[in-house]
């Protein structure tokens, strides 16, 4: 069961290309984990 034809997709909203967006997400995730590791390890 399908519906009507898909509309044309929109242009990439940020950073120009999807691979750059994905790289930004991965970099952000790694940065958050690094910050969490610091939060966990630093002596209060």
């Amino acid at each position: 069961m399908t519906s009507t034809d898909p509309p044309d997709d929109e242009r990439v909203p940020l950073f120009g290309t999807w691979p750059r967006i994905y790289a930004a997400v991965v970099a952000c995730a790694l940065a958050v984990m690094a910050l969490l590791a610091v939060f966990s390890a630093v002596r209060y």
Partner: protein
Amino acid sequence: MSSLDWSVLAVYLVAVVAFGVWTGRGNRRIEDFFLAGRQMRWWAVGLSVMATQISAITFIGTTGQAYTDGMRFLTFYFGLPFAMVVLCLTLVPFFYRARVYTAYEYLERRFDARTRTLTSLLFLLSRGLSVGVTLYAPSLVLSVILGWSESATILMMGGSTILYVAYGGNKSVIWTDVAQMAIIWIGIFLCFGTAVAQLPADLGLRDALALAQTTGRLRIMDTSTSLAAPYTLWSGLIGGFFLMLSYFGCDQSQVQRYLSGSSLTQSRLSLLFNAFLKVPMQFLILLTGVLVFVFYHFHPAPMLWNPVEMRKLEAKADPAELAAVRQRYAAAEAQRRTTAEAWTASRSPDAEAAYHAARAEMDAARGQAVKMVERINGGARYNDTNYIFPSYILAHLPRGLAGLVIAVIFAAAMSTLSGEFNSLATATVVDFYKRFVNPAGTDAGDLLVSRLLTAFWGGFACLVALRAGQLGSAIEVVNRFGSYFYGSILGVFLLAVLTPRAAARGAFYGLMIGMAAVFAVSRYTPVHFLWYNVVGAATVFVAGLVITAASPRDP
């Protein structure tokens, strides 16, 4: 609860139902009802995806877990951002361009009707049963803490959700999820702020974190390589990655959310939005639980958090024994407070040792009380982790705010239930009713059937929840049921999109072999459940390829 709290909760319930009905107007076809006419923007879909995932028991359970165990649970979500990227690269474009209503519909295009029917049926079985538990768990906690009738709580939560989902379909689900997610975020910030504000005047946030740290509550990164250890960095990154791939890629309750995007770009952005926000949100929730733990160093903490079990203990236990345990607990608690104050003031190793000794004594006294409860309950395991945060809300939050946070728990439950009722109805209508019973139905007829089936699944969830108290350990079986085949279904989808040569026979029998493998691992090894999805997906993928290679080619 005060009358102000009751008013806040009542306003929330009335407003959410009215808002759901209002936003769900204008459905003409099942594409409107199930996919919101494919017109939703990324931020609305993204918030709906987030709201569907965070259930009430996640909200109250994780704060309780942070109180008892610390923040290790956060690693559970570490695989999520990477899973979102992989889904945006693989399954999402396939689903979106195929213009399907359900994830399983895509499998018929790629393989055959048998594979689609089996995967959809597995979804209906597991989600249909677990949605009852999703409703039962917070209802039980709220009824115990607030003294409400369990049935009334179930019917209030489930009934109000059925009202707007059966009328408005996915549009109502998404827009109420947006509103509920806003309430949940406000609630999280208020709880966090209140927990900080309620620390003693001479105890700064840094001292509170130091106290939590010395008990191991701030430890997030457990680098143990044991497959049996819960919530390690590796199980979170690898097991969590596969779990999130399975949940967001193959579970209709999530797939349906992002298929409502107005374009592939909007669908992708909705998932990436979650990739950014999920871990920070869980961090805040867990940190709130840790601060509640510190808070109870300076305020009396109940010996048992479940008041019903405490009353049962008072009625049935030997009074002398109970009095002795209470006395031991009270003395240990006072000692813990004194030593905690001394340690935060001096930070000396001796003060730290004295604090740990007092804490161990308090844990031992509580352990004695837990053993007594288990004894009078015929040996049944006692766990009151889910009662900690609601108890804190009621006892220590200002009037009005307590009602708002109870509304947040309702919002978290209802946002999950709404997505699940809607997706169960979708799979039933699209994969069974329209596929086998009435493929040529009219728009009006299909819409009516869709609404009736939404109400049916909502009613079924209420029925399971009302009977769940008598199911006992069957609830655990239901909860585990999904984990047996989640990863295996993911394996079928990976076969579909990554290997053009994989055939229907390989996918179907590979799925059977994958589920058997997961069952064997869960039954005969101590491997933690986060790894089941890795086992299932890998087994199906390899078995599917081998069976395809060994089978005669289709003409």
